[in-house]
């Protein structure tokens, strides 16, 4: 019975993806002069060269981290649309640690990652505390804090850590001691991959194998029940946001320490909102997150290649994303078909299973 539900959910997600892709292709057919070539670049493009495979993996790393961050908050029944601000601020704190606290190799990276987690956790904690103490909706507060910490982070970088000799608004270059080293030349795939894998394992174990994770899930499923059973819902609200923020912070650090080696964002990168898409596709399960992140990074990467090589623009992919999310979140999608299967099984097993 439980297994059948799982199979159904996976099947439903796959069908939603197929339909979305199909629609994408129809649109390409309509708008493009060279549809077949466009298809080919979109579907196979990311796998054609080592560098492109590298790009795909690089793009996956921060998406895995924000996907996990949002999943943890969602499992606690909390929203976190503040992953954006959390990762931005995490990137800022990692940069500050990188520039201001010279430390030996390895130690420096670890301290910078820790700094990023603290930065993200701080932002998450504000939402959590405001919810727990004053009942302020974390939906609103985390969204608003995105802009607060975006501006605050920019202020810190542009006024205190800006490299005046660089041609753009960027920070000083980070010392090599704080880099996440590249592990697969000639691509820029970096140690952040290990960070992401550790975060997946941590999230899974935390949510399903510890009592705090248990309390978090019960609170998410029914907070009145959790309170009744003696679980401190207030504590769960706060620590779920803190952990979520910490993991989001790592996402920012991964890009800065692993790819750019200096802080160069002047806009919010958007990974936080991508995290919501990934968490939704993964049904908030930490082991589903890497699959969803790989998938999203793949179609993005494919779309970008397609737009470079052909006359179809990469915004195509936003349409596909949108349709996918709509179908996945629509409870009724394929429910008739599911219901028929249930009826059949119930008849086979007799009554009142």
């Amino acid at each position, binding site marked *: 019975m*439980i297994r059948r539900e799982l199979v159904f959910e996976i099947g439903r997600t796959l069908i939603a993806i197929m339909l979305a892709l199909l629609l994408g292709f129809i649109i390409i057919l309509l708008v493009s002069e060279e549809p077949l070539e466009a298809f080919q670049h979109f579907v196979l493009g990311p796998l054609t060269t080592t560098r492109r495979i590298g790009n795909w993996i690089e793009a996956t790393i921060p998406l895995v981290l924000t996907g996990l961050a949002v999943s943890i908050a969602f499992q606690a029944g909390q929203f976190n649309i503040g992953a954006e601000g959390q990762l931005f601020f995490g990137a800022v704190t990692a940069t500050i640690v990188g520039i201001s606290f010279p430390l030996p190799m390895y130690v420096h990276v670890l301290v910078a990652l820790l700094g990023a987690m603290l930065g993200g956790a701080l932002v998450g904690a504000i939402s959590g505390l405001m919810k727990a103490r004053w009942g302020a909706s974390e939906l609103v507060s985390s969204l608003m804090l995105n802009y607060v910490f975006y501006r605050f982070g920019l202020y810190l970088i542009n006024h205190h850590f800006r490299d005046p000799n660089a041609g753009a608004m960027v920070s000083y270059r980070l010392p090599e001691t704080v880099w996440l080293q590249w592990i697969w030349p000639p691509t820029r795939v970096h140690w952040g991959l290990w960070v992401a894998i550790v975060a997946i394992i941590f999230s899974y174990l935390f949510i399903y*194998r*510890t009592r705090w994770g248990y309390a978090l*899930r019960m609170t998410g499923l*029914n907070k009145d029940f959790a309170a009744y059973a003696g679980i401190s819902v207030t504590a769960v609200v706060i620590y779920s946001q803190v952990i979520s923020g910490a993991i989001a912070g790592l996402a920012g650090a991964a890009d800065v320490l692993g790819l750019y080696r200096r802080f160069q964002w002047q806009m919010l990168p958007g990974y936080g909102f991508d995290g919501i898409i990934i968490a939704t596709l993964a049904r908030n399960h930490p082991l589903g997150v890497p699959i969803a992140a790989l998938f999203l990074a793949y179609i993005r990467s494919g779309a970008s290649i397609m737009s470079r090589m052909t006359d179809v623009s990469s915004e195509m992919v936003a349409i596909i994303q949108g349709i996918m999310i709509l179908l996945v979140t629509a409870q009724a999608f394929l429910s008739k078909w*599911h219901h028929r299967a249930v009826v059949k099984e119930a008849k086979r097993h007799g*009554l009142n*299973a």
Partner: protein
Amino acid sequence: METLLEMKAITKVYPNGVMANDRVDFRVNKGEIHALVGENGAGKTTLMKVLFGLEVPDGGEVYYKGKPLQVTSPLQAIRNGIGMVHQHFMLAPSLTVTENLVLGVEPRKGLAFDWDQAVQTVTDLSKRYNLPVDPLAKIEDIPIGMRQKVEILKALLRGAELLVLDEPTAVLTPQETEELFTALVGLKEQGHTMIFISHKLNEVKQITDRITVMRGGRIVGVRDTAEVSEADISRLMVGRDVILKIDKPPAKPQKRILEVQNLSYFTPEGKALLQDVSFSVRAGEIVGIAGVEGNGQRELVEILTGLRRPHGGLISVDGYQMSGSTPRQMRDLGVAHIPEDRMLHGVANEASIEENLIADRVQMPEYTRKVFLKTEAIASNAQTLVTEFNVRTRSPKTPIKMLSGGNIQKVVVAREFSSNPRLVIANQPTRGVDVGAIEFIHKKLVEICRAGAAVLLISADLNEVMSVSDRLLVIYGGQIVAAFPEANEVSEEELGLYMLGIQTQGDTQLKEALA
């Protein structure tokens, strides 16, 4: 006898795979009161929802007045003359009786609402069917019994010939029940047909003409009421003999476990929901609190279990001052709580049975190491409890949402009783569960009490509160208005008078009984 309604081979499967109706054939004659009885999860409500257009069946046909009937919405059912009185009233509390009744079928004067005509219609209707209501009163100001009459009138005003009454007496006092029955008989004499859904077999016996019994989604018997006894019906329902009487060794009260002194609680507007409530419960005794719902029971229980803070008064458990404690602190002191609403407080519906059974104890060294949970211990805890409490499921890993109401309640009871409590607070512990589960839960309550726990039983079901309790208190308007040292020496009628606030015991008498 002319057949009014015939449902043929109705089959309904819910998305969770439960086959709620399995080729059900159900027939109702014109002008009869027809009882539909069965345990929880037997499929009565589902069958009625199909009739009323609230559920689409997966198979079967409905014939009404000899013609095939396709109902896909309640509106259509009403147009065909089928009315339903729900267990939970569907009324707008801030509107008047008249406004509630004519909602959607308002008489008009030109474009305007004709208020006088509406009041007149309601008054006439109320007279014609002998269901007295005050047309000008607001719903929120009138008693439950009258609200129910408004519900019935609402259906009649829309031309209902067939009335479905879903557990109409569950919320009524004995006096109100009698009144309702008189009105129902009156309706029958005027040619109306009624389907009466109930768990209370004595009422079924008293008021109905024929009985259809359901079990496990099927019809297991159709009988003339006059030809069967209550025991016969319950045997059909459960599939075995049920002991309706509770076997209870005499109480041996020991030291006071729960002491409540001058407890008060107010709404934000300053209305007192609990006023100077004082009583105590000793180890080894069951103290029952009887009362019509909404007289402060919920607030009292939530305060005693730490879910709500009182505004005045003292609570002590086993000698410890506990006023304003958290649920965690109460549980650590050995207070178990069977909540009134099991779906709201008692379980996490999406979580497994196993996960629900450790909610209160997950932090204990038996179930967790410093960081990681002990999964084997958690699984064996579930396995033991599922067996001991006879929870019917294929596996303890099954989500709660796959279980029937009675089995969900058994999960709640299993968790609360296995925490080795010294005080059990049971609020409506058998609400909406079947006869078999009721018997089981009552037995367990007595067992745990005689083993040395103090039990506080809050129930709106008079039968339950009188037969299970040793001592009995009555709550009305947030105050304890009567106390009886021997629960089985009180009559239902006498209790009813106190529950309705018609009578109160004097201070001296109360003090004596509570001492």
